[in-house]
């Protein structure tokens, strides 16, 4: 098998700039998606039946179709209806909304897991809805919600690769360009795997750290 490590070194500047774009988009997108998803989950839980149903449909559409197709339609179809966005803003906004749909479901499961009595206790001492969410629901559901959230963070990182289709010069695009220019496909995939693996490991490690920090208490009963 042809494996020429020099291909990587001779293209290092491009690879690094691609990696940088990937990381920046990912780091903006994930928190945005999480916050947006959280707000949607709150709206669905506390905002009445109509809001719940409406968001249910939006989420079904966002989750139901591949991000590739969504971003393709928005970016290339957008101009036909007068919506012309630049690649990176389009990518960041699109990916945040897409991720929010998944995050909202994760938070929904978290809300449902907190014993009703704990919320009632909050109501009885006069906490407002916002305070109950912030001070009781969020911390209590941490253990349940963190692992899937880390999963989602990882998935969003990998979804950034899709943005190459709207000409965002992120890492996957850069590497596949190097691959097809010099036909160094194997080397390109190797770097790609290594890079994503490293980022995922760091994410997973941060997730564990957060877990041990945030879930020191024990559930003593339901």
């Amino acid at each position, binding site marked *: 098998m042809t494996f020429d490590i020099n291909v990587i070194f001779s293209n290092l500047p491009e690879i690094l700039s691609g990696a940088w774009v990937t990381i920046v988009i990912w780091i903006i997108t994930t928190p945005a998606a999480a916050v947006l998803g959280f707000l949607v989950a709150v709206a669905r839980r506390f905002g009445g039946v109509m809001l719940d149903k409406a968001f249910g449909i939006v989420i079904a559409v966002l989750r139901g179709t591949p991000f590739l197709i969504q971003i393709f339609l928005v970016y*290339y179809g957008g101009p036909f209806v007068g919506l*012309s966005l630049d690649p990176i803003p389009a990518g960041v906004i699109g990916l945040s909304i897409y991720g929010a749909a998944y995050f909202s479901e994760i938070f929904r499961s978290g809300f449902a897991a907190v014993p009703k009595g704990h919320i009632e206790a909050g109501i009885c001492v006069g906490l407002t809805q916002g305070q109950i969410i912030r001070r009781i629901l969020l911390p209590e559901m941490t253990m349940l919600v963190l692992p899937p959230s880390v999963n989602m963070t990882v998935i969003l990182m990998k979804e950034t690769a899709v943005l190459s289709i*709207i*000409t965002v010069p992120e890492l996957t695009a850069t590497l596949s*360009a190097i*691959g097809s220019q*010099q*036909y160094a*496909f194997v080397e390109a995939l190797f770097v790609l795997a290594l890079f994503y693996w490293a980022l995922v490991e760091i994410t997973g490690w941060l997730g564990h750290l957060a877990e041990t920090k945030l879930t020191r208490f024990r559930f003593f009963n339901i």
Partner: protein
Amino acid sequence: ADTLAAVKAAGTLKVGTETAFAPFDYIDAGEHTGLNVDLFAEIGKELGVKIEWVALPWDGVFPALEAGKFDVVAGPATITKKRLERYRFTPPIAEATIAILKKAGDTTISKPEDIAGKKIGVGKATAQLDQLKEFSETLPTKVDVREYPAFTESYADLAAGRIAGVANSLPNIAFVASQRKGTFEVVLPPFGKKSYFGFIGLKDADHAPLMDAIDAAMLKIKADGRMAELQKKWFGASFDTPDAVKDPAF
């Protein structure tokens, strides 16, 4: 081991390809078709073997070639200097010289030089990109080059009006224009240095006899006029191609 012997023994030549490269290789109404299919059918006859197609996305083609999932890659790809360093190319099967695709009825572009200062789309990391850039240098105002992950997206953006044209090899865009008559038009003539499409194989000793045999078969097909016939069928015209490209322009 000698791959040619293995292929002959098995009676099948496995060919890897991507089926999204019309008119060379594509799915028409569910049928795998294109120049590649016809040409390899002839090559198979010459070698006395059957052809077995393995369709993969382009990302997967070369890892699979290296892993021995098939013997040769149909593609085709533009023969370039860098690619020759890693892989071996067959004799050219068509010209890959570049031309412009524009929106139908766009009167601002009537010859290649008119793209000066305009936004022109091209596939990222393609041989066509290099050609377009070189051509752009010769113009009074440079071309605003937009790179796309694949040509499909650039056509979509041309239709969406984000760009004024797409630069790609003439056989490809001629086919695009013929398929979407009211939408696209080809700007003639082609420009830039001549380049050629070829099929791809491995360089190692094991594959040398096989590649030599394929080369010989293709030259025979070319010599007796079958190649020109196929080119006419698929491109509407035949090309004058060299027997081998040892020193490409790019």
